């Protein structure tokens, strides 16, 4: 087990380097350092000198990947790629184009993101499982049929609709909560209610239907027939036998996203004006702030790898058949 985790962490290093390289390449294929400088300085004041100065201040005056004018190993280290990447592995993300420290920014923006994502995750998991169980218990009746129709309907509607519809109905017409914004401490609660509800509903259709499929598949297995042949009532068959086995794919599917909750949601945060990491990323993309985008992509892949390792560990907890080695 320990061996397995150490090996997985070692595997993570080349993956992170690769992700970095790809982000770097993609970003600079569409965008040269000159474009970045021009964007930052504004169209009017642009002179070649100003661009050169801007680049030099921020370390963008070197070649991208290979520096022919240096000697030895410095041919690779004195480049934009190396200088901007190496520090990232020590979580030194550097400064954004506006001069703020990215690391600090991430720390402060993490909490608002988590404040939405965590309740959506926990509440959602509970609601979807209960809904799916009810549909399975009443399978092949109208309860099941109506449930499936509802799921498909929920799936078919864009999540933008839930956001705008929710804002219109709950905030504009009924004046129950503010349309958007964020507050400190407990004050934030009134701003969070709507995004959380919208978050749960917009994912309800696909997840409930998926869980229902998992439950039904388990119901068809031979061991369920064995359990019935023992004379067990249907509720025990469902809760003790089916649920335990169905939780294996459900839990492990859910565990992988837990670390990613820190990154928040791009869409909801932008619409509800929440100062989290999701809106931070969107803003950085809009202003072509390479340092922030790369820091967020790096963090994203790091957390995803962490999530996958967590998934593997959670397998060993819920499924006795699996041993990591």
């Amino acid at each position, binding site marked *: 087990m320990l061996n397995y985790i150490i090996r997985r962490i070692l595997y993570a290093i080349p993956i992170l380097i690769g992700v970095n390289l790809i982000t770097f390449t993609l970003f600079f294929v569409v965008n040269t350092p000159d474009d970045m400088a021009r964007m930052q300085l504004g169209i009017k004041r642009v002179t070649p000198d100003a661009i050169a100065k801007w680049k030099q201040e921020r370390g963008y005056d070197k070649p991208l990947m290979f520096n022919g004018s240096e000697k030895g190993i410095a041919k690779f280290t004195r480049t934009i790629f190396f200088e901007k990447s190496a520090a990232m592995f020590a979580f030194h993300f550097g400064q954004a184009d506006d001069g703020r420290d990215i690391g600090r920014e991430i720390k402060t923006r993490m909490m608002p993101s988590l404040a939405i994502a965590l309740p959506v995750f926990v509440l959602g998991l509970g609601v979807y499982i209960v809904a799916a169980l009810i549909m399975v218990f009443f399978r092949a009746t109208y309860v099941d049929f109506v449930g499936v129709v509802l799921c498909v309907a929920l799936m078919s509607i864009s999540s933008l609709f839930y956001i705008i519809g929710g804002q219109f109905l709950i905030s504009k017409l009924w004046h129950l909560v503010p349309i958007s914004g964020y507050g400190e401490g407990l004050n934030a609660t009134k701003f969070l209610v709507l995004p959380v509800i919208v978050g749960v509903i917009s994912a309800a259709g696909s997840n409930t239907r998926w869980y229902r499929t998992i439950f039904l598949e388990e119901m068809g297995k031979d*061991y369920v027939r064995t359990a019935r042949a*023992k004379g067990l009532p249907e509720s025990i068959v469902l809760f003790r036998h089916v649920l335990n*086995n169905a939780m294996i794919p459900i839990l492990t599917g859910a565990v992988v996203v837990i670390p990613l909750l820190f990154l928040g949601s791009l869409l909801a945060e932008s619409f509800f004006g929440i100062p989290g990491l999701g809106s931070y990323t969107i803003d950085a993309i809009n202003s072509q702030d390479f340092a922030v985008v790369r820091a967020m992509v790096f963090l994203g892949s790091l957390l995803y790898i962490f999530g996958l390792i967590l998934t593997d560990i959670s397998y060993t907890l819920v*499924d006795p058949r699996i041993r990591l080695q």
Partner: protein
Amino acid sequence: MSPLLQINNLTTVIHSAAALAWPVDGLTLHIMKGETFALLGESGCGKSMTALSVMRLLPEVGEIASGSVCLHGEDLLLLPETAMRGIRGRRISMIFQEPMLSLNPVMTVAEQIGEVLQRHFSLRGAAAQKRILEILNQVGIPDAARRMSEYPFQFSGGMKQRIMIAMALAGEPELLIADEPTTALDVTIQAQVLGLMREVQQRNGMSILLITHDLAIAAETAHRVGIMYAGEIVETASRDEFFRGPAHPYSKKLLASLPRRERRRQGLPLSAIQGNVPLLSREFVGCRFADRCDHAWELCHEVAPEWITVTDGHRVRCHLFDKDMPAVIREGGFKGTKPESGTQDSGSWLKPDSQIRPAVAATETPDSCLLSVKDLKVYFPIYKGLMRSVAGYVKAVDGVSLSIQQGKTLALVGESGCGKTTVGKSILQLIPPTAGSVRYNGLELVGLERKRLREMRAQFQLIFQDPYASLNPRMRIVEIIEEGINSLNAGDDREENTAARQSGTASAERLDALLKSVGLPPEAKWRYPHEFSGGQRQRIAIARALAVHPKLIVCDEPTSALDVSVQAQILNLLKQLQDSLGLAYLFITHNISVVEYLADEVAVMYLGRIVEYGSVDEVLNNPRHPYTQALLSAVPVIELESRRHIIHLHGDLPSPANPPPGCHFHPRCPHVMPICRKTYPATSTFSSTHSARCYLYPPEQEQEQGQKQGQKQGQKQEPESTSTGVG
């Protein structure tokens, strides 16, 4: 005495999207206390549905339409569901075919048995634990105290079925329904489980409803048998009465379709039953078997036969036994009988003008060695530790040598997990061998250049076990067969083939002939695999293999997924193809009776090595290795007189990753000696073809005889001999 279970006129309906089906249609049977009743029949005739109807555990689309199921005179079908739950697991228990799937994988064995105790006896805690241990000991789980808290995946297949039996026994039932309880198990394990069931029955005096397709199992375990066909029972009799003289034509045919050596000696094909079990969604007029019956006349197609008592306790549903029928018709029915219909159904396709050219020229020497394998090894590495270094090997195949002559069949026999499939695949270079040599017609295949090997592939083909999984469901039959022809250029006639592809007609003709040769109509080529039955699919798989004119076919359990009557059709086909095309077969199987019918030579494999090798007569009549002896004794046979002596092997097949030291078989061997635990025995030879690896026989014999043989072989100019090949 009133019967324990009385089923009257039971009819079960399955509502499917397309149509209604009646898997059980007016079934009547009774089971006495302490009696084993075997319900026999082919797959799809409604046996399992009968059992599930008794338990009222039909799938959701199923429904009991009419009839009654009385346990001690109480109709179970009238009980409310809650009362029925008190009967399930308590008065009637059931065990299923797949012990691997029938246990909950995430609950410990003790928890699963404990559920029954808690449900029916409100037994919990220490009292329950004590009782669980008692039951597990009763069904022969070794080291039960420790193992009861383990999960099902930690047990072997045979042990899992014992646990299922333990779970069934926990309720102390009056009736045990066993639905194909040993079909998924190896013969030696099957013998253990059947023995256990008999033992438990004698101790507890319970009745057993045994559902099986295997006539021999019924002959060994049942007191009375019922033959089921297309949803109804067509014959019931006591075991002795039935196997002495089955009355119904279907019963007779079932018995006759069992592969036996005598039939091959006489050069007779097996008597296959033509056609398939009819779909149960159709409406039946007259006798359900009439379409496949040799004795049928008009009346059979018009009026369903009533029950007729042949002798006391032996009843049959067939017009042949109707005393009211004029004797003329009755005899006429018999007269119309062809002696062997099996020859009829597939004999016609092999005419001299057949489009399939024999792959073997008649001038070739008959005993030339087509395939010779020497010291073949296939090791799979086991990785361990932080850097995943190789910590050991699973020696799936550990030094196997064998040879097959042109037009002959070598059967490779062994239990699951002994490495026989790996041998087949590594001979065909589908799994690269770790070491050893595979020579095909003198050409070394191991390490052969990829391109050359690809060209050679037309010469040797493979037929897989499961025809349901081995044909691409999205391809038409014509595409499945042509794919092989096109990619391998069909061996020698490359020009003809390219020309054919241009014109399209010649290749179409060839395809039709090919389909005809495996007994399928040419129109079949436009259809998809799912439109065919299991037997027909295996015919398609054979046609696919034959399409490129191979000389060697590796058949990997080709009939084990098929019913007995269909198995006979396929075996006949394989035999006829061998005779006409001069094919050589490597026949991988666990089924000894198939070996008897088809093979010329037999190699018995145990844990990666061949333990005995010889001609069919030598190995089957005079087995020398204790494993072969046990394997043969464990095969159920239909014998009326003496119950044969079964050599019971203890335990399961050990893991090939960690084989026992010395002779791999010694932990299970009844004749184990101290030396067996130390080193693997050398080859002992008994005749020029027969050899075994066992310390019971002096290896010196080998040297003397080996020399003699060497001289003999020198004269015969055999490149490889089977006896020396075993080493």
